[in-house]
């Protein structure tokens, strides 16, 4: 059984998406990258479950990583 919930779990998905974009408003690429990194660290600590985080990392890399760079 997988630990990571990838079924719909958000009441208002469009609003969440808009808030994520708004978090990067007025930032350059480096600042945006840092906000994303902080967000990952904050959420990873909140989740705390290494299995969930590992599965999320694997899911995030999926389709990004091609055979040649894996």
């Amino acid at each position, binding site marked *: 059984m997988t630990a990571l919930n990838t079924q719909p779990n958000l009441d208002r998905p469009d609003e969440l998406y808009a808030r994520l974009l708004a978090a990067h408003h007025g930032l350059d690429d480096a600042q945006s990258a*840092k906000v994303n*990194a*902080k967000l990952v*660290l904050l959420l990873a600590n909140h989740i705390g479950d290494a299995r969930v985080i590992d599965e999320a990392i694997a899911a995030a890399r999926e389709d990004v990583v091609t055979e040649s760079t894996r």
Partner: protein
Amino acid sequence: MKTYTQPRYGYARAADQDGAAARKPVAIVGAGPVGLALAIDLGLRGIPVVVLDDDDTVSVGSRAICYAKRTLEILDRLGCAEPICERGVGWNVGKVFHRDALVFQFELVHEPRHHRPGMVNLQQYHLEEALVRRAHEVRGVDVRWKHKVTGVAAHDDRVDVTVETPDGPYTLACDWLVACDGARSPVRGMLGLESEGQAFRDRFLIADIHMHSDFPPERWFWFDPPFHPGQSVLLHRQADDVWRVDFQLGWDADPDEERKPERILPRLRTMLGPEARFEIEWASVYTFQCRRMKRFRHGRVLFAGDAAHLVSPFGARGANSGVQDADNLAWKLALVVDGRAGERLLDSYDDERMAAADENIAASTRSTDFITPKSAASRTFRDAVLELARRHPFARRLVNSGRLSTPSVLQGSPLNTRDRDPDFPHGDGAMEPGAPAADAPVRGDRGPWLLRYLEEGFTLLAFGTVPEADAEALARGDVPVHVVTVGEGSVDDVEGLCATRYAARPGTCFLLRPDQHVCARWRAFDRRAVEAALAHALAREDR
């Protein structure tokens, strides 16, 4: 150097240079901290040992400075921790700053009532001097200065060593050769062996300065401080009012330019303020590497310390792990030389210390990855952690300015006996098979600390009585086990901390190896079980 004058021990002609080729049980190459610790340990165990060194003095300049609690306990066993602790600067607190703010503070030892502090800072040359003095005291230790090894021929039954001296060359044959000859290990090269790993693309300036200051004896580490923007800085206090300052310079820095005083002084002035008065003792520009040999035992030649494995300095894991190599090897080599254990016992040195080296390399690589990010993504995460750490406690534990040396728990060791009783604790300082024995305050005829009561050989640490006949039988074995009774016997657990630290109940017993590592534990004494665990710890039975 202004605060220190190197001793000169001088060349002396050895008797072997005049007669036929001498045969020694053990020869050690390199009179650094690892070679000297090993020689002292073997000498105390009654094994004659020759130490060959190409120089006639101690190490020069900025080398190791931090000796961890476990190393000090080993040096206690060797009879030379006292002068080192007296001369050195004991400390227990590390502080990490980001820009101008304290973000993280850690303690090396979390509870009071330990004999030795978390760490003692002392220049390596002082440590080596103390070890040389001790080596000269111990019978059977023959340190030969200006005897430079120039050739090694390893055979099935012996190793022939060619030694160059001011009087010309001679040959020395030994049963076992231990190379403690440092990161560049000439012996390793002579045997065509390699130490493999990675070099980090960063440069660091290390400046040892002489300065009177009331700065606390703590380790201070800065990421991106106002006085050295964009890079890290580390500050340590050493003996004789000497301070170690370590500036990260980046890969593009020119090492020849950066070691010039006219480049170093402005950096120090910016850091310490215009009113600070100091003098530079020693400065050097370094790059760091993590490497290890594929095996540490090659037949009759064994490798220890930096010759066998190399780490970056963040974490103080170089000299500390080297002394622990010596601690691990000495008793095994002594038993093999005596004929009381088979050569297979030496393979456990390989197993145990390679696992320890991997642990140290992993810890030091992770620290270096944090201090010297290798990619844009790792730099982003590093900076994100540091910014979060200013406000959020969880991120402080991710800040990695070096995870300081802790002794390896030899969990996967082939010498350990698997627990039979199910209710023992594991991990996090537990006295499980493989763990080094914890010290604790006690009362008894050998003084106020438990480790002083452990014997040179194997010890059965018993929380409760062991029948006298059994204790006598164990002490009479060809490899004796001495029973030390805590509570109502030889050692009084006055504060109850022995029982706490060992999670002991009445009847609980621990079998401790000569290097003070636990190899078996039981909830009740059983002589057969102790004898079986002893045979196992000597690699006597088939695996």
